[in-house]
């Protein structure tokens, strides 16, 4: 019985994004007594503490939560760096979309369209080789001109920049997609 209860609680804590309070566990598992639940949580935490493991159950913010052990942080950080290689932040994605559809373009044009300074995003995209500098505009301040790269085309499976979905194609999708849900 206690084993089963331990497993249930383990899965509940695992699935919670916020610290799972004792109250909530108790309310969810109304067929078990408070003592049973307390005992199960205790045992569960002890298991994680004593056995060699990479994760643990911590008590935080008035509840229980799974977390990785602090000594493993350096490796996790490395993984995050690795993960970022092929990924984009929402800001970078938006910036990239402006470059893609408005190229050749400058930073001030991008920032104006997005309504927010995009210098950081452009830098990220340059580093990821999704955009490149192709020259300077003959305009005050001689701003740099950006274009998407071949790597960009490969990443999105395009043969040429002309193959980007049109506003009509997309509008339909966005509109109907909204009604769906």
């Amino acid at each position, binding site marked *: 019985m206690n084993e089963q209860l331990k497993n249930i609680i383990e899965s509940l804590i695992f699935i919670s994004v916020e610290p799972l309070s004792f109250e909530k566990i108790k309310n969810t598992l109304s067929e078990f007594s408070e003592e049973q639940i307390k005992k199960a949580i205790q045992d569960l935490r002890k298991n994680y503490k004593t056995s060699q493991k990479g994760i643990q159950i911590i008590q935080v913010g008035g509840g229980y939560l799974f977390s990785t052990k602090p000594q493993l942080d350096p490796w996790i950080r490395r993984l995050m760096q690795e993960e970022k290689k092929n990924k*984009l*932040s*929402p800001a970078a994605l938006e910036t990239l979309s402006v470059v893609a559809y408005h190229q050749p373009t400058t930073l001030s044009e991008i920032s104006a369209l*997005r309504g927010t300074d995009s210098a950081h995003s452009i830098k990220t995209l340059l580093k990821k080789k999704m955009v490149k500098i192709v020259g300077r505009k003959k305009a005050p301040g001689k701003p740099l001109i950006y274009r998407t790269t071949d790597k960009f085309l490969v990443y*999105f*499976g395009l043969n040429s920049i002309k193959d*980007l979905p049109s506003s009509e*194609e997309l509008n339909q999708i966005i509109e109907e997609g909204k009604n769906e849900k």
Partner: protein
Amino acid sequence: MSNRHDYKVNLEVFQGPLDLLLFLIKKKKIDIQDIPIASITREYLQYLEQKNSINLEREGEFLFMATLLIYIKSQMLLPREEITNEEDPRRTLVNRLQEYQKIKAACSVLKEKEENQKLKWQRASLPSSKWREEEEFMEVSLFDLAEAFFSLMKRKEQENIQILPSKEVSLEEKMKEMRNYFQKHSYLDFFDYFNQQETIEEALISFFCLLEFIKTKTVMAVQEKPFHPIKVWFCNE
């Protein structure tokens, strides 16, 4: 009439004409390789007739299939010797039905897997705030890219329609602001500066200020060549 209602199967339950045909074939235990076109056509039409009115947009496909069935039936009536086996008028339809049958089978497999997988819960996001910021990064596809752009354009459009409450900008304030700008930057790019103004009103006030500055010789407007950008320099004596 009420009798008819009893066996009425709603056309809506079928994904399309192929789905309905396959249902009839299965119900009658017909060999898909040798479909009795005449009777299946009759059955098929009965389903369509249950509808009082035909919604062309949704049921057009069903009607199209009916025409196809009738056409095949007429072909079958041609003298026997004219039809060799390869030219069986049903061939194309049978091929399509067989392909569709496979899709249906795949569907049942996926449905079962969906059922099983739904029991295994995975986290949609990470609990630890320490890593959450990193998690913001995502793998994107062409759809995401295009959606990002067109959503942005739409947002922009809506912004433009909005009537901004005109900000009250006084001449004095603007003078002060511009003087500060000059002191900081030593020169001003005419177009850039005016583009930055939030409203036309504000831009106009800035323009008056600039004229005032030029009149009092606080600044000097320079254009290297005709049609070149105008630069305004602060005269620091």
